């Protein structure tokens, strides 16, 4: 990309070193658990050992007798204020604390507040709960069978465990295309429960000022403004009014979607602070984080693809059963119960498609949040990219050739997909061609053939994904009715420096740097002179927060538009100062100059000073602007990934030898940060592909509930990622960007799965569900008689 600004200004395209790093590398980050307020007390939570049980009694006497224990809060306590249930973002309900029964193992049962976190833990041990176990439903298919125990007995008319049915596309047209198809393939694909496991767990410090009635909550949230409104709506009846609620999201130690929901712990901490009149800190431990916070995925999909014998795809059909646990606590836009799953036609020109999702209640933690992806996009991409390889295998076609044959072509954009999306821009053949060239695809295929002769197992996997991010246009996208715009507010100080505030909230993405670079690009003020702030609802403009790769498409766009409003006013001031007409002025590199007389110029700094000291008569003083940006469309980042694996035929272990990611996220603000986002996304794509899974036994006992058995990749399993770019700007975004934080998480799993299946394809293997553990591969190798 051509740089328009100097290194000193550091606008778009510069790999500026991050402005937030000086505090982090000194251990001076400011995370929730670092907050210590005068008189602060600690909250710890009693959790259920059962997945489904009636609560017969909760005995708190022994806990209350411990010196330092101040209170024990139960569902009965909260029920006095009608706060024992709360709404989920999907208009379902979930318990804050139970009064009747628990619905999953590790569910919150009671909370102990004490002067010290150790004493609070002592108190938790001393609370005695009497349970009466109830029949447990863990399998979502069995949950929907007639006669299955109805779990949500709190819902008066609920006679089954079905949550919703959702569908998109043309069912009849798709069925007809399948009936007429020359070739059809069908594959069951399961993506298990996984957990984002940000290294910082969730927590808060709730500080209620009894005198003034003000509530301040420092919390690990990706969406502070929305949380403030939710708190006001849920607790308005007990006097928490929105102007008296301040949510502060300080430095966040990774979010990835896990810090979007409102968890019971936050609400209990707020209630405790209101009851006790003291600041209350709650920080969950890792096991609580993995066992009780919202999960991701858990999609049981059946994908079918129809094609002509020459490989031309003609129709796609996917039927899914979603396991949501005991409540639908997904964090999707309200009109999209299955998120943006209808991106499942992917990068291919599919004339017909139909998809449907049904969701079921089970005795598992509530959820359905993202794991570093935009609302079920990973599930959709995994389905299409896997079934495409299954078709290639059926047709005995090279998977790259099959993709190239079916790609939406560059000249077809904007492209209307069979499931109703208008893809903004793309050049899919270019991305795959670049990846194939860089990795020497033909050479790898030759090597694979030679190795196969020698009995060695090597596989090459491709994923050519299309994402859908940047939610979203207000006509379709809202959360609890709040439209999914996002905001920027920029103020230029008299000395030409600036402060910029946003409705989003970085959790490591580097907004303090990239937003400053956008201001620098648009106004010529050095990025070093732009202070970026987010996360304090008292100061930042309202916005829906950071998730779904939406910050650059929404707040980033708002930043550019706000800066352009400032530039428009700056032009009027410059015209006044230069005694020229506005039409005679041109803008370049942070200054307005008179056409044909470049020496007659005013810099943005001179203009800023004049805005406060010598502004034109009749004009308002000051130089600032705010913008609430409502995107006209979503953005559609894409890429082609190629993964090369070697499989140890003795142990079944999969080793990623090479992984090349060619990404296209449109125009790039900071190449260093974009590469960092892709590296991290790739690691979080590899994790569920090979290692991570949360599963339950038939009694609802969790496995994968601590880092002992929930396997997060270390530097040893993670390969040295290779990256490259193509650049296809978004035509509707103010500076042509698309968003990048999640592309790699979405694109990587099928590339890895396809590589492993490719390594075993000659043995008749067509599909393996992720995570592809050594045990799964070892079992296949033994069944096929090729284990060494």
């Amino acid at each position: 990309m051509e740089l328009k600004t100097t290194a000193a200004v550091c606008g778009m395209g510069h790999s500026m070193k991050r402005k937030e790093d000086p505090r982090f590398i000194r251990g001076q980050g400011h995370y929730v658990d670092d907050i210590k307020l005068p008189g602060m007390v600690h909250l710890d939570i009693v959790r259920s050992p059962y997945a489904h049980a009636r609560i017969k009694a909760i005995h708190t006497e022994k806990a209350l007798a411990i010196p330092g224990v101040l209170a024990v809060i139960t569902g009965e306590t909260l029920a006095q204020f009608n706060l024992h249930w709360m709404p989920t973002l999907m208009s379902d309900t979930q318990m804050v604390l139970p009064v009747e029964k628990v619905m999953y193992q590790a569910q919150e049962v009671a909370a102990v507040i004490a002067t010290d976190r150790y004493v609070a833990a002592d108190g938790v041990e001393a609370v005695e709960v009497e349970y009466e176990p109830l029949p447990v439903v863990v399998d979502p298919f069995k949950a929907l069978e007639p006669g299955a125990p109805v779990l949500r007995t709190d819902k008066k008319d609920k006679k089954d465990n079905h949550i919703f049915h959702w569908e998109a596309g043309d069912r009849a047209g798709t069925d007809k295309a399948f009936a007429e198809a020359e070739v059809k393939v069908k594959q069951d694909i399961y993506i298990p429960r996984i957990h984002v496991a940000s290294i910082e767990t969730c927590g808060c410090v709730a500080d209620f000022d009894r005198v003034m009635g003000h509530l301040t909550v420092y919390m690990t949230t990706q969406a502070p403004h929305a949380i403030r409104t939710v708190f006001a709506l849920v607790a308005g009846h007990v006097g928490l009014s929105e102007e008296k609620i301040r949510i502060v999201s300080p430095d966040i130690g990774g979010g990835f979607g896990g810090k979007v929901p409102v968890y019971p712990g936050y609400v209990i901490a707020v209630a405790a602070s209101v009851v006790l009149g003291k600041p209350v800190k709650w920080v969950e431990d890792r096991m609580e984080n993995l066992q009780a916070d919202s999960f991701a995925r858990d999609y049981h999909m059946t994908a079918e693809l129809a094609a002509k014998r020459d490989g031309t795809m003609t129709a796609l059909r996917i039927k899914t059963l979603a396991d949501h646990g005991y409540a639908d606590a997904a964090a999707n836009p309200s009109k999209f119960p299955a998120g943006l799953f209808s991106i499942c036609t992917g990068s291919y020109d599919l004339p017909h498609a139909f998809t449907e999702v049904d969701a079921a209640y089970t005795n598992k933690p509530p959820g359905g949040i993202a794991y570093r992806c935009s609302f079920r996009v990973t599930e959709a991409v995994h389905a299409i990219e896997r079934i495409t390889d299954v078709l290639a295998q059926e047709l005995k076609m090279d998977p790259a050739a099959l993709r190239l044959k079916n790609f939406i072509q560059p000249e077809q954009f904007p492209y209307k997909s069979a499931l109703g999306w208008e893809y903004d821009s793309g050049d899919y053949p270019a991305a795959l061609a670049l990846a194939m060239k860089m990795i020497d695809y033909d050479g790898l295929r030759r090597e694979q053939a030679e190795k196969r002769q020698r009995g060695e197992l090597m596989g090459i996997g491709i994923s050519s994904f299309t994402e859908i991010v940047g939610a979203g246009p207000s006509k379709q996208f809202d959360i609890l009715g709040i439209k999914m715009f996002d905001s920027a507010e920029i103020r230029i100080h008299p000395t030409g420096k600036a402060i910029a505030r946003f409705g989003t909230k970085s959790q490591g993405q580097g907004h303090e740097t990239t937003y400053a670079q956008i201001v620098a690009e648009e106004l010529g003020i050095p990025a070093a002179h732009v202070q970026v702030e987010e996360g304090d609802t008292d100061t930042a403009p309202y916005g829906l927060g950071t998730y779904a790769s939406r910050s650059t498409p929404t707040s980033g766009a708002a930043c550019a538009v706000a800066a352009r409003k400032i530039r428009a006013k700056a032009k009027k001031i410059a015209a006044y100062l230069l005694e020229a007409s506005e039409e005679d002025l041109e803008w370049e590199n942070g200054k307005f100059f008179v056409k044909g007389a470049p020496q007659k110029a005013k810099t943005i700094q001179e203009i800023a000073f004049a805005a406060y000291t010598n502004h034109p008569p009749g004009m308002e003083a000051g130089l600032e602007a705010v913008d609430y940006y409502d995107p006209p469309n979503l953005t559609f980042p894409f890429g082609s990934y190629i993964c090369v694996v070697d499989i140890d035929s003795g142990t079944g272990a999969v080793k990623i030898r090479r992984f090349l990611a060619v990404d296209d996220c449109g125009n790039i603000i900071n190449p260093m940060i974009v590469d960092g986002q892709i590296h991290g996304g790739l690691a979080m794509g590899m994790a569920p592909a090979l290692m991570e899974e949360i599963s339950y036994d038939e009694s609802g006992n969790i496995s994968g509930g601590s880092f002992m058995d929930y396997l997060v990749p270390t530097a040893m399993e993670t390969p040295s990622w290779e990256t490259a770019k193509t650049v296809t700007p978004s035509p509707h975004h103010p500076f042509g960007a698309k968003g990048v934080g999640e592309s790699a998480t979405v694109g990587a799993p099928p590339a890895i799965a396809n590589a492993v299946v490719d390594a075993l394809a000659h043995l008749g293997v067509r599909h393996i569900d992720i995570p592809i553990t050594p045990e799964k591969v070892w079992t296949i190798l033994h069944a096929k008689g090729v284990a060494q």
Partner: protein
Amino acid sequence: MSTHKIKVKIQGVEREAEVESRLLLVHLLRESLSMTGTHIGCDTTHCGACTVLLDGQPVKSCTVLAVQADGREVMTVEGLEQEGKLHPIQDGFWQEHGLQCGFCTPGMMIASYALLQRNPDPSELEIRQAISGNLCRCTGYVNIVKAVQHAAAALRATKERSTAA
């Protein structure tokens, strides 16, 4: 709960504290001494966010009792910077974009510091092994490896200059 008087040298400065037997070293640092640069990320000694040096060896301070540090030396992330000058490890992480959310970073830097103390010119594999007890969810590790290589080169260059002088 019995308490114990302990003396711990932290970044070379002797600190005294009266602690419960069960107090973890990480809580002594974070809560009693308000040094919050050392973070807590798990309960099972897996994530390494709480890594500190105990007598020069990297340990996970969530699994060390404060009383076990009695009479010993501790160094945390706050001890890396000297006289207002960043340690090359810190500079390496900054220059190479070796951090994103910053939560694992203190532990990562301490583990890397310990590696470079014993091995000034580590291979990529040796770096990956040295940080394999520290989980990072943001970076995919590539830039952390580069950060440590950056620091190793800077430290070697400094040593060569001082040897030449």
